[in-house]
């Protein structure tokens, strides 16, 4: 998968490998259809179609997405990754795709109503996400880091942690997939970390960056852009300027 | 008969050994017919207080098996073995032998001391530890009492200076003397010796035989299996000759050695005369 970016010079369709941690609803292979799905997934498919690329998917833990990209395992990170300064030192980001913030997941019986209430509790986040920085500031009695969003949610369900911070879209989506009386999303909740999502590329792949940005601009100009967001429970609030 | 210390009555013992099976037979759970060897074919033997009975017999005649049955290290098919008038390892119920509780058998076994060909010292214990262990674990003696007694018995067998040696630091003859002290310290009514010197280098045999002789002279009741004819003749109050699972001849040594009746006895004696070992 690594050096397929260079293929296609002879006119054959170019293959782009995307890296994802396979978390719904951002970018994941649908268990039933086998198709790449999700917000970021479908957006990238739209861009790829427009650019005439084939798409391959490389699945790895979230915290190894950047190492995997740098190690040439994939060409683009397409996984709802926040554009942050720390990450920008390692990789390039495209123009913003959309905006979203974190959600707070707690056991059903919890009295937590806001992130200020979690001081002294056992907190959890996914290894490698920006939320690890957030929970470090909240005064939890203990913090635990999980390799996947699913593990994080299960830990709340099991009572192994008292509060989990992660993408609100994931939390909402998981409750739709498997309605679970043991856990609840804190609502209303104003994100501390409203972030901008983008795709990540290796520093040197400037040409590909330009292509994706061009495709993205085109996509944003179509109604399909909002349709994708709405399909997975996001809306106009999440549009990036 | 009740004043017999040991009374072996019509004892039969059969070993059942499975034939070696091929890989596939085992895998498919096929079993061959078992091979059955009757090793004791109705043995009778009485041993009374202060006797020294020496059992002779060629290899495979069942001598060891007989000793092991007396101590219930083997089960028997039929017959009865009484020690001090009690069955060992069994209860009688409607004329049948039924296994008794292990703890009861254990208690009865303290009446019988056994010394093995290969010593069987506890390898993780010193000479002293070997003699003390059963005194503490079985007789529940205090550490101090057990120690005093153990030292006494080790001194009796001439090992007062080897108390703290582990078995690996003892010669064969020394090991066997520790084993004898260990058995004697339990004050059994009878001592069984199964070829106590045949695993020893020739030059070490003498020291062990000397110890056994001294114990005999003190009046301890003993049954000894040995191939040392000269020793047997000197020590035995009675010689018992076994052949193919039966006792074929018995009597005082002066008669057995000078006027053997049974062919087997003659063969045994003649063999020992021509070759010194």
């Amino acid at each position, binding site marked *: 998968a690594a050096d397929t970016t260079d293929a296609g010079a002879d006119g054959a369709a170019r293959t782009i490998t995307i890296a994802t941690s396979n978390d719904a609803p951002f970018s994941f292979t649908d268990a039933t259809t086998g198709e790449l799905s999700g917000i970021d997934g479908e957006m990238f498919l739209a861009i790829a179609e427009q650019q005439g690329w084939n798409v391959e998917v490389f699945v790895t833990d979230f915290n190894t997405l950047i190492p995997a990209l740098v190690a040439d395992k994939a060409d683009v990170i397409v996984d709802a990754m926040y554009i942050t300064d720390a990450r920008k030192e390692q990789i390039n980001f495209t123009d913003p795709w959309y905006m979203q913030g974190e959600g707070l997941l707690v056991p059903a019986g919890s009295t937590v109503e806001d992130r200020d209430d979690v001081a002294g509790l056992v907190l959890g986040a996914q290894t490698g996400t920006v939320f690890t920085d957030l929970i470090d500031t909240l005064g939890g009695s203990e913090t635990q880091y999980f390799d996947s969003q699913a593990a994080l949610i299960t830990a709340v369900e099991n009572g*192994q942690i008292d509060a989990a911070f992660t993408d609100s879209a994931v939390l909402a989506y998981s409750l739709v997939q498997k309605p679970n009386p043991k856990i609840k999303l804190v609502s209303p909740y104003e994100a501390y970390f409203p972030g901008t999502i983008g795709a990540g590329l290796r520093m040197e792949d400037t040409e590909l960056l330009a292509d994706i940005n061009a495709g993205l601009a085109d996509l944003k100009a179509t109604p399909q852009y909002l349709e994708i967001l709405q399909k997975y429970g996001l809306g106009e609030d999440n549009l990036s300027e | 008969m009740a004043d017999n210390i040991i009374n072996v009555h019509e004892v039969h013992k059969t070993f059942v050994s499975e034939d070696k099976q091929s890989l596939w037979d085992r895998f498919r759970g096929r079993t061959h017919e078992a091979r059955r060897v009757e090793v004791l074919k109705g043995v009778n033997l009485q041993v009374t207080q202060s006797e020294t009975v020496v059992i002779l017999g060629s290899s495979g005649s069942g001598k060891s098996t007989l000793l092991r049955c007396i101590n219930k290290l083997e089960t028997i098919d039929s017959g009865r073995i009484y020690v001090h008038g009690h069955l060992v390892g069994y209860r009688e119920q409607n004329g049948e032998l039924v296994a008794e509780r292990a703890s009861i058998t*254990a208690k009865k076994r303290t009446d019988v*001391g056994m010394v093995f060909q290969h010593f069987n010292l506890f390898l993780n214990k010193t000479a002293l530890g070997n003699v003390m262990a059963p005194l503490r674990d079985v007789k529940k003696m205090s550490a101090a009492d057990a120690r005093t007694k153990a030292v006494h018995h080790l001194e009796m067998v001439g090992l007062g200076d080897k108390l703290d040696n582990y078995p690996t630091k003892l010669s064969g003859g020394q090991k066997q003397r520790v084993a004898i002290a260990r058995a004697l310290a339990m004050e059994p009514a009878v001592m069984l010796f199964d070829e106590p010197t045949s695993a020893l280098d020739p030059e070490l045999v003498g020291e062990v035989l000397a110890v056994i002789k001294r114990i005999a002279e003190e009046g301890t009741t003993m049954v000894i299996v040995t191939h040392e004819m000269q020793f047997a003749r000197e020590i035995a109050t009675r010689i018992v000759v076994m052949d193919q699972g039966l006792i074929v001849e018995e009597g005082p040594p002066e008669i057995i050695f000078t006027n053997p009746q049974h062919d087997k006895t003659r063969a045994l004696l003649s063999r020992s005369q021509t070759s010194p070992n």
Partner: protein
Amino acid sequence: MEFITDTLAVFPALFGAVPIVLQLAAGAMLLALVLGLLTALARISQSKVLRAVAVFFVEVIRGTPLLVQLVYIFFVLPSIGIAIDPVPAGILGLGINYAAYLSEVFRSAILSVEAGQTEAALSLGYTPTKALWRVVIPQSFVVSLGPIGNYFIAMVKDTALTSVIAVTEILKTANILNSQTFQTTEIYTAAAILYLMLSLPLARIVVLMERKARSRG
């Protein structure tokens, strides 16, 4: 040069995870020793049921990956009401896994003690149970020392697997550092060296213990 100083700079953060690793390994080893000995005794017991249970336990544990066992204990057991924190779950998972292997060590060590030792004990009036505990098992421990030591070293390394159940041991710490600083090479090199610093001295000790045990034999 820069690589070396950068690598050295990672160590302080990783050292913080060493106590957890030692806690995991010590706790799990204790559990594995007790459970392993019990399983070994069950396997050589008279009771058919006990034997079958022990065999089933050993086969299932040895037939599945430790990683799957850890995931199971941490994420699945809570669904039947047994919720366990990461470190205890790690101890439980490692302990149960190694118990299955140690039970085989104990079993073969017990069987390797000559029958003559038991017979001598019986002839002296020990009950079979007492002979097992006072004569056979102490000797079998000496034989087992080497294998136990080697399993302990393996266990120290296997604590790395508990990173998947959110234990902040060395590898997890390295992962977290990596997702913050992205110094992949330096961080994992430091982690590898730290594991070597833990396991090589242990290996030395095991060799010495084994020789010592043998020389006493």
